[in-house]
């Protein structure tokens, strides 16, 4: 088969499944819907693995070509096409694999839902959109995929559309993402203006021609064009990848069904921003200002969102804040020019975070849709598979040496340490402190759910049992890479030349290259870790969690009472939501009303339009009164007029 048609099948087979399940859901029935979508995604996943093998293992050439021309205007071609290199093929494998797991899992999770076919249609449509995004060879198609995943995210967060909280959350998610897309689109416009094309390869090849050009935005201060473009593009990434202050939609997105929290809001879509910046590395490398911004924003997100995970009581929200924090880690890596480490963490995180979410979903099924961890406890003995896999996921997340998360996170931390860009000290502190926080919230969750006193009611306890195989199988299949994939790929992905030409790093920014000199294999790296700060921070996080939630369980409440103001601050999520609600949402509605009622109704209609009408009416009223119909009135008027004319003549005015 020709490679191009192979790539087309990878993208289109989930779309075919989505269309059949969505438009003909009644016809194909429930099992028809899940079979057609699962087969579609499975085909896509197998073909992606085949391409992965061909390109990464056998060293075959990639592909960069057009599928069709979207439009041509003034000689500029806007095209739909594929760029298949090591970066995109890795993303394709991650996306389709996690998606396949989630598809299978959904058979169990959504078993009793009336919107069964619709759900399968949406997640397959998502897979298609995400593939379009990662396989794109130009900015236009990137934006297509970018917004398409946003659309599906909107539809899935609001999947249970009768819930007020769900339809509030999906509107919020879409709008916050649109704020990001606003910047993103301007960035794309900048690329078109200065490069004259939207094709990646041509743009990257001409970076040095634009490097050094300046533009003015405010006043006469010159801005480097590339800095402006990169920051605008990064605003898009901040929306999609939920970086402060555009992070506010992600926790609320947990209103959607759990499978999509795993797929979209943890493993794939939210990492689109990370992928995009890595893809744009030839641009970002030219702007230290932009890199610095990226690093600081990432660091803020990594640390401060982690804190919020400490006080959440909803099982999904703890994991959601953990996702925010981990996205912050990836962003910091990008800012430190350790793109490969960021993408590496993206990959390992996709596996273990999908695992954690699906594990949480398994718990939620068993608990009959109770999500409050204060009503859980001791689930270990009722659901052994969920327990073991969840523990594996947590260990990977906190960076236990040897697990997948350890390799990716440790590479990031060490890379940041070597960075010299403004803000690197803060970033290093944030990612280091974040390790303690991560361990603390992860194991707080773990202990409260799986150990200790069984706090659920009698009825729930009587019905507790392990979930069916369609749920546990994906957990097991995700647990395997969560353990091993880090050790397997750290040498090539983080410190080797896995991505080849797909990622570009300037020699003076090459922190990973520096680290690679001290890298002697995965195993020595794990051993060495026992003597480094991150390990001890993580361990103390686990120990503190154990003490607080297993030994001295009364203590957390006392601490909370002591630092009430801090708790209030965290409980209100630093007041971001309140501020946005009042300032942006309320403000816009207020401006709208003001402009409408004062501008349109009072000024334009009231004074000018109806005012004109009234004036005309008034004048005609006066004029009408003059025409009385009495002859002597007219005669009198004529005489007055005549006298006036005479007077002007006599007085010499004419």
């Amino acid at each position: 088969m020709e490679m191009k048609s192979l790539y087309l099948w990878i993208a289109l087979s989930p779309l075919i499944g989505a269309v059949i399940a969505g438009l003909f859901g009644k016809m194909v029935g429930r099992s028809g819907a899940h079979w057609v979508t699962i087969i579609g995604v499975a085909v896509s996943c197998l073909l992606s693995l085949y391409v992965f093998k061909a390109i990464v293992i056998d060293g075959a050439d990639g592909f960069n070509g057009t599928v069709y021309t979207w439009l041509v205007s003034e000689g500029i071609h806007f095209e739909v096409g594929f760029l298949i290199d090591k970066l995109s093929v890795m993303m394709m494998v991650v996306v389709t694999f996690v998606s396949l797991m989630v598809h299978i899992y959904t058979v169990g999770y959504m078993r009793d839902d009336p919107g069964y076919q619709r759900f399968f249609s949406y997640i397959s449509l998502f897979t298609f959109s995400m593939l379009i995004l990662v396989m794109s060879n130009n900015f236009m198609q990137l934006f297509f995929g970018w917004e398409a995943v946003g659309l599906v995210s909107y539809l899935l967060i609001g999947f249970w559309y009768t819930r007020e909280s769900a339809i509030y959350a999906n509107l919020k998610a879409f709008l916050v993402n649109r704020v990001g897309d606003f910047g993103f689109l301007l960035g794309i416009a900048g690329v078109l203006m200065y490069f004259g094309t939207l094709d990646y390869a041509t743009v990257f090849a001409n970076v040095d021609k634009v490097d050094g050009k300046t533009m003015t935005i405010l006043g006469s201060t010159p801005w480097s064009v590339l800095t402006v473009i990169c920051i605008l593009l990064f605003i898009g990434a901040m929306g999609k990848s939920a970086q402060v202050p555009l992070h506010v939609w992600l926790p609320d997105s947990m209103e959607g069904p759990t499978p999509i929290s795993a797929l979209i809001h943890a493993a794939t879509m939210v990492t689109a921003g990370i992928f995009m910046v890595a893809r744009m590395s030839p641009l970002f490398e030219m702007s230290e200002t932009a890199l610095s911004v990226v690093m600081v924003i990432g660091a803020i997100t990594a640390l401060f969102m982690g804190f919020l995970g400490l006080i959440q009581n909803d099982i999904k929200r703890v994991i959601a804040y953990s996702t925010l924090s981990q996205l912050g880690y990836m962003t910091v890596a990008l800012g430190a020019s350790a793109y490969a480490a960021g993408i590496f963490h993206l990959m390992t995180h996709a596996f273990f975070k999908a695992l954690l979410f699906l594990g949480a979903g398994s718990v939620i099924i068993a608990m009959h849709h109770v999500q409050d961890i204060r009503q859980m406890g001791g689930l270990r003995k009722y659901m052994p598979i969920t327990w073991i896999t969840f523990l594996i996921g947590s260990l990977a997340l906190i960076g236990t040496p040897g697990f997948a998360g350890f390799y990716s996170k440790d590479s990031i931390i060490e890379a940041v340490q070597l960075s010299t860009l403004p803000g690197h000290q803060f970033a290093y502190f944030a990612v280091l402190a974040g390790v303690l926080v991560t361990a603390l919230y992860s194991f707080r969750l773990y202990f409260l759910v799986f150990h200790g006193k069984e706090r659920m009611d009698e009825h729930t306890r009587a019905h507790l049992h392990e979930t069916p195989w369609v749920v546990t199988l994906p957990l097991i299949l995700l647990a395997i890479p969560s353990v091993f994939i880090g050790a397997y790929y750290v040498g090539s992905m983080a410190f080797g030349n896995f991505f080849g030409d797909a990622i570009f790093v300037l020699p003076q920014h090459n922190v990973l290259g520096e680290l690679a000199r001290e890298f002697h294999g995965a195993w020595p790296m794990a051993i060495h870790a026992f003597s480094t700060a991150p390990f001890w921070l993580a361990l103390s996080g686990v120990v503190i969690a154990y003490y607080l939630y297993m030994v001295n369980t009364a203590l957390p409440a006392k601490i909370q009472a002591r630092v009430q103001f801090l708790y209030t601050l965290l409980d209100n999520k630093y007041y971001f939501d309140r501020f946005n609600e009042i300032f942006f949402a309320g403000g816009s509605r207020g401006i709208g009303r003001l402009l409408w009622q004062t501008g349109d109704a009072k000024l334009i209609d009231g004074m000018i339009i109806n005012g004109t009408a009234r004036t005309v009416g008034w004048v005609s009223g006066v004029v009408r009164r003059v025409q009385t119909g009495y002859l002597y009135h007219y005669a009198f008027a004529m005489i007055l007029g005549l006298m006036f004319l005479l007077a002007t003549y006599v007085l010499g005015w004419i």
Partner: protein
Amino acid sequence: MFADWPLLSLVIWVPVFGGLLVLATGGDKNAPEARMLALIVAVVSFLLSIPLYTNFQMHTSNMQFVELHPWIETFKVNYHLGVDGISMPLILLTTFMTVLVIIAGWEVIQFKAAQYMAAFLIMEGLMNGVFASLDAALFYVFWEAMLIPMFIVIGVWGGPNRVYATIKFFLYTFFGSVFMLIALLYLFFHTGSFSILEFQKLPLALDVQKMIFLAFLVAFAVKIPMWPVHTWLPDAHVEAPTGGSVILAAIMLKLGAYGFLRFSLPITPDASHAYDGLMITLSLIAVVYIGFVALAQQDMKKLIAYSSISHMGFVTLGFFIIWSIATNTGSYKGAVMGIEGAMVQMISHGFISGAMFLCVGVMYDRMHTRMIKDYGGVVNSMPTFAAFMVLFAMANAGLPGTSGFVGEFIVILTAFKANFWIAFLAAITLILGAAYTLWMVKRVIFGEVTNEAVRSLKDINRREFFILAILAITVLFFGLYPAPLLNVMDASVSNLVHHVTISKLK
């Protein structure tokens, strides 16, 4: 086979005379025959317009399908028709939308059905006349005559406050037209003909150009409408029956924009340049100010009406950033793209706003209210309808993959070349457009069912499904593959830009 047919005359007069024929069926006892006849006329007109596309020569900017006959020889008025890549797509849009409007009014209009159908057919012919006229006098006749059926549609089948709305509509547009007439007469006296193509060649002093530009501006700004002469539109939409709103939004608003391309820019290029700052400012006010106003609306039709004004801001923005691009980048490269983006926005807005008004019509027919607060949870009783509504709402918010994205995207891309802040303000529509459209969807479509009336709603029937499905396919097609649309207009727009960038000063 169509090569020697007078296609343009046919797409003008078949609907007009067909409409008169429908009118002849008389009272409501013959309504079924009247409807069927109207549908046949509309479909035939649409079929007649298709060869305009299939036989169109893409690579020339010359007028095609030209018909030229003397009409009033004393004043050198000719019956002169012809289309280029700018007007041809608009004629297709008109014939296409009219078919849908006839079907949409099928069983909804029970009162004077024949007259209703006839009004739309006659209006269709007259609007095609506006787009096809190359003679200014002929253009003016069609331009004014077209108002009458619309006036009647709103006045007879409109809502409770229809008298205020029709008078406001008529006075506004008539007021604008009078200035245009003066400008046309001036041009007639200086060229000795009413040929629009001759007007375009006439050199004029800057002061004269400015006067003519302003006279045209009044006429076209009212039609589009541009801020601050837009307030007739929400009132007209609210009172108009669904079909009236569809035609108003889909086609009538485009007449103003078309006027800029056919008259203002080519006849008074130097004045257009002199006033481009004003035009850009008014366009951006339309995008941002009206976007905020749309957010505050409680009536769905008003909301969509304001959304229309905001979207039309992109059209005028795309037309008038030519010179800013040249000032900022030192070349006119990008100007063609801006106008093409604006043109795509015009066509796409025709489909999307038409579809949005049809959606509101579907709900209004069942609930007899347009207020957002009377709805909530419609998806529970009308799932198929809800799917369409969400699709069109997304298209209205400019989602990639729908036609709503194409025009906005291209205009924002070119606006960046003109000035960062123009692009910045224009791009705010990404947020505002999504906010007002999806907030409405949230309150109307999603949520718990809040009242009994909504609970007992029936989902769309086959007729409604057909109309919305056709529009959905169209919106998606042009979103995924807009190239055919741009290929048609490319030669004409390039020629226009070339013409506009050459000074006509004496």
